[in-house]
Structure formats: C-alpha cells, structure tokens
C-alpha cells in the first residue's frame, strides 16, 4: 500500500511498479509459489493507512505488506505487531522507523545514515563551511533536515538558515530571500517530487551561483525532466543503486520493469525498494539474513533497520554520476 493519489503519488507509483516487476519475475521463474500484488491507496494519510492495512490483512489475507510514508508507518506498525503481519518499509526514512515493530523491516536506509555521509562529505571534501537548508515541512523534510544539520554541525560546519516550505508549494521567493541574506556556501534541499524540481529551478534563478545538495528522493528521470538545466551539478546521497549495473539481478529487474512500463527504465531507487521487498519476502521462505538486492546488500539489524551502502552522486546533464560509495 502506498500513497497513490495526492501528495507523494509519484513515489507510490514507483514502489508499486517495482514490486509488480518482482512479482512478474518470481512468477516467470516458477519457484513453486505464485506471487500477486494487491494495491491500496493510503493517500499518505495515517487514517487511510489503517483502513488499507485492515483491508489487505483481513480481507485479502495477504502474506506481507509493503508500505511507506512515515506517518502511515507509525499508524500501522501497532497493527502489524498485533496481527503478526510482516510489513516492509519501502519509503519512510524518518529515524523513528527504527524499532517501530518487530514485524516491520526497512528496505531503505533511514535518513540519519545517508545525511550524515553527505554532511561530512560537504564539509570535508567540498569545503562548504556554511549551509542553508531548504526543506518541506512534513515527515520527509523535517527528519532529513534535522539529521543533516546535526551531522554538519558535528563535522564542524554551521547551518546559517533553515527555511521550510509547505507541501505543494509553488513559490519559494521568501525562503530564498532569507537564504540569500544568510550568505551560505551551499543549499541543502529536501522535498517531495511535487516541489523538488521547482524549488531547484527557483533556487538556481534566485541564487545562481550557489551549489545545491539534496537527498535520495531526487534521483529520478522525472526530476531531471521537470527541473531541466537546474538539475545539473546537484550532489546528493542515495542507496548505491544503479539501473545500468551489470549485476544479473539488476538486469532482470530492469527488464521486467520496462516490460510493464512502456520501456521506461526504473531510474528511481523507490522502484528498487519495491522490487527488493518482494524478493526478500520470497527469499524469506528460504530464511536468509543477508539478501543481495538490486538496491544493494540488505543486512537486517535487530531493530528492523537495514545496513546498506550509500552512494554520493552528482547530476551531470542528464545522467547520475557516482562520486563515491560508502559502506555502513
């Protein structure tokens, strides 16, 4: 279940498409069980998340659930514990996801690890001493912003401005005005797909020489299309996922995804999380603790979080170049 309409609809779409690709591959492999996918729309709202969970577990009797959106996870984790249903977190990065339920497993790193990597890289390698943060005021933006700021200050840097915008915001003039006044060396930007491209464009317009740093949510073709030239040069951290990798599992994933999605390559790691979650569930039938996924090796800790490699990447024109890969 995921946000399939309203805010975050793009992310939900990616996850579902990735999971569907997994189901297709698993069924084609004829491993003995058939996998089918039932989708529910949570609209990224906790109440709807609960209703979707109830329907999936009590009516459809699903074996496991994929979900995302921190607030939805918060609301449904107690239900997962109560009904002993395994739930995979494919889209919530808030650090509060750690230990949220013995039945919940995150397939993506939580924001504290990869923002830390980026913050240290920004200070030490890029030499930025002062950074301004520009973030969406919801359960995606705030945790990322908070952990980045903490890590940056711990590394020795200074956060000179922290400007919030609301979801679906169209005009960032106020935030950018304050950021300009604070004279940072760079801007750290976090938002949902609805705002990211436009915040980036306006940042380039109003602060033409300021470098932009961002988070994993930016890595997708949709962002490149909407942001255009503004995307060039943005550095961000993400899961070490590469759709053009030669690894067999990645190739299988990409092939299955393209087959059902008009030849589109899965550029967003969220699609990969959807795929990995399904595959992990299938492999759980064989009981492994470490699972090599398309988004990297998955080693689960006791609190349900996953230790995964993080990549530092840069947007060069229309592709994503890897600068470094950091192991956990």
């Amino acid at each position, binding site marked *: 279940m995921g946000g399939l*309409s309203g*805010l975050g*609809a*793009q992310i939900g*779409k990616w996850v579902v498409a990735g999971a569907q690709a997994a189901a297709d591959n698993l069924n084609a492999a004829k491993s003995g069980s058939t996998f089918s996918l039932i989708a529910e729309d949570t609209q990224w709202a906790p109440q709807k998340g609960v209703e979707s969970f109830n329907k999936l577990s009590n009516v459809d009797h699903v074996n496991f659930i994929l979900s995302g959106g921190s607030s939805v996870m918060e609301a449904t984790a107690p239900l997962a514990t109560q009904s002993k249903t395994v739930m995979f977190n494919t889209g919530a990065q808030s650090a509060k996801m750690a230990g949220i339920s013995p039945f919940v497993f995150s397939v993506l790193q939580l924001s504290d690890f990869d923002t830390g990597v980026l913050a240290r890289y920004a200070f030490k390698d890029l030499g930025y001493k002062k950074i301004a943060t520009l973030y969406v*005021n919801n359960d995606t933006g705030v945790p990322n912003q908070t952990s980045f700021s903490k890590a940056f200050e711990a590394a020795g840097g200074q956060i000179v401005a*922290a*400007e*919030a*915008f*609301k979801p*679906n915001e*169209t*005009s*960032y*003039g*106020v*935030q950018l*005005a*304050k950021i*300009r*006044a604070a004279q940072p060396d760079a801007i750290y930007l976090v938002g949902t*797909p*609805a705002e990211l*491209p*436009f915040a980036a*464009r*306006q940042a380039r*317009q*109003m602060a*033409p020489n300021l470098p932009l740093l961002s988070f994993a949510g930016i890595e997708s073709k*949709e962002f490149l*299309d*909407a*942001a*255009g*030239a503004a995307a060039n040069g943005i550095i961000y951290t993400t899961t070490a996922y590469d759709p053009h990798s030669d690894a067999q599992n990645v190739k299988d994933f990409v092939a299955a995804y393209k087959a059902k999605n008009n030849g589109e390559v899965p550029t967003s790691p969220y699609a990969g999380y959807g795929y990995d979650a399904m595959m992990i569930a299938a492999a759980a039938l064989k009981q492994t603790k470490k699972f090599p996924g398309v988004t990297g090796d998955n080693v689960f800790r006791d609190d349900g979080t996953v230790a995964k490699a993080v990549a530092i990447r840069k947007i060069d024109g229309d592709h994503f170049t890897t600068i470094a890969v950091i192991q956990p």
Partner: protein
Amino acid sequence: MLFAQLLANGIFVGSVYALLGLSFATIFASTKIWHFAQGAVYTLGGYALLVGTGFLHLPFVLSIVIAMVVCAALGIASMQFLYAPLRRRGATSLVMVMASLGVMIISDNLLLLYFGPSGFSIDVAGPEPIIVGGVFLTGGQFLTPFVALVVVAIYIALLFKTTFGQHLRALIDNEELLLRNGIDTARVKLLAFASGSALLPIALALLVMSGAGISPNVGVSATLIGAMAMFLGGIDTIPGAALAGLLLGIVESLAAFLFATEWQTAVTYALALVFLMLRPTGLLGRSLPRASL
C-alpha cells in the same frame, strides 16, 4: 536588505494574488456563487499552457491567449452545466460548493491519470536578472508587477467604462432592478464567469516564468488565495480584491522577516483575522451581508 528583498518578493507574489482576487471576486460578487471549481479551471489553464508551449512549442504569449480562451470557456461551462442546473433543482449554496469540490477532484485526477503525478516546467526565456538597490530580482519577478498592473488597470477600466461592466457592478447590489429594466442577467453572469476565468492563466503564466510548476495540485491554493483576497477586499466590490491581493502577498512575505518561514501561513491568517475583526467590511467594501447562507 533582507527586508527590501522580502518586500520585493511580496510585491511580486502580491501582483499575482491581485489577479487571483479579481478573478474570484468578479464571479462571487456578481453571482454569489462559491466557485471552488475555479481550482479546476486554473489547473486546466496551466495544462493548456503546457501543451501550447511545452509540447507544441508555440510562443509563450500565444499559449497564454489560447489558455485564456480555454479558461473562459470552462468558466462558462461551469455555470451552464454545473451551477445553473443545480440552482434550477433548488440546490442550496452549500450543495453547490460540494458539487464544485467534486468537480475539482474529478479534474485533478483526470489530469493525474493522463499526465502523471509529476509536475512539469516550462522554460520561458525571460529578461535577465537585475539588481535594484541591493535587491536581487529575476527577470520574471521584475516584470510581473508591471504586467499585473497593466492587466488590472485594463480590467478595472472595462469594469467601469463598458456597458457589461456597469451591468456587472449593478448586479452586485441589486439583481431585481436589472431584471426589471429588461436586462438579461443570466447573460451578464455568464460573461462574469468568462472574464473572471480568463484572468487565471495570466496569473499562472507569471508564476511559471519565475519557476513555478504545472501539476494537478496547483488549483486549490490559488482558489483559496483568491477567496481570501476577495474577503479582505470587500465582498461587494471587485477592485478591492486586487488591492487586497497585493497587500496579502506583501504581508505574507514580510511575515517571514519576523517569524520563521514555517509560521508564515499561520501568521498571515492570524493577521487577516485581526484585520477582519477591526474592519469587517474589508478594505473597500460597503456593507455587511446578511447572515444567511
């Protein structure tokens, strides 16, 4: 320095709000209809701009003109196919609000299905950024207040000089008088919808020039701002909404001078509330309406 920058931003945003206010006020003042489907018209106008310049590569100004025609048509359609039939069936005003919200949900999701959830940008070659008195203005931000001023001036001139405009203003106060003089009020109302709606793509185009995106979500906030501007300006006057819209934009931006940006909306509304309590008729309004709905 920051103050001046924020003020400049406020004037930019406020100019757009002025147009939104004019649009909503034209329709509400003359027809007393809460046209929340305006959000759908605004969004569809945006996609018209997208198809025009983004996909068909027409010159931007041409796309705006086309979008204006599209929106005017949609405005008329709203009246003809949504509000008028509901009125005839004896619907209360609130039921019409409900219906217009339903229309907005339908429109947003149709766009979502057809164009996908991701927003689109349009690259518009605007003038270069300039620095005026230490304030950094992008080309779009610099141009917008002038464009808006011209549009508002023309609009108000039409409102006061043309026969249609006079009928529209008369409709605000006293519909019966017009009817008794043999004037087809239904037609005047349709024209009100058309002209109010035609302003919308101009507002959106100005925002797009400064980097805003086009996606299914843009309509809701535009309508709410238009409604706010109308109230603050006075619900029985149309030009008031333009002035109120401008002030609203300025206040909203300047609020960030004293408060952290996450409090922007709350502070702006709090100030608006205080203002309304001190001056319930709005900036230029004349009288309080009756309490019924």
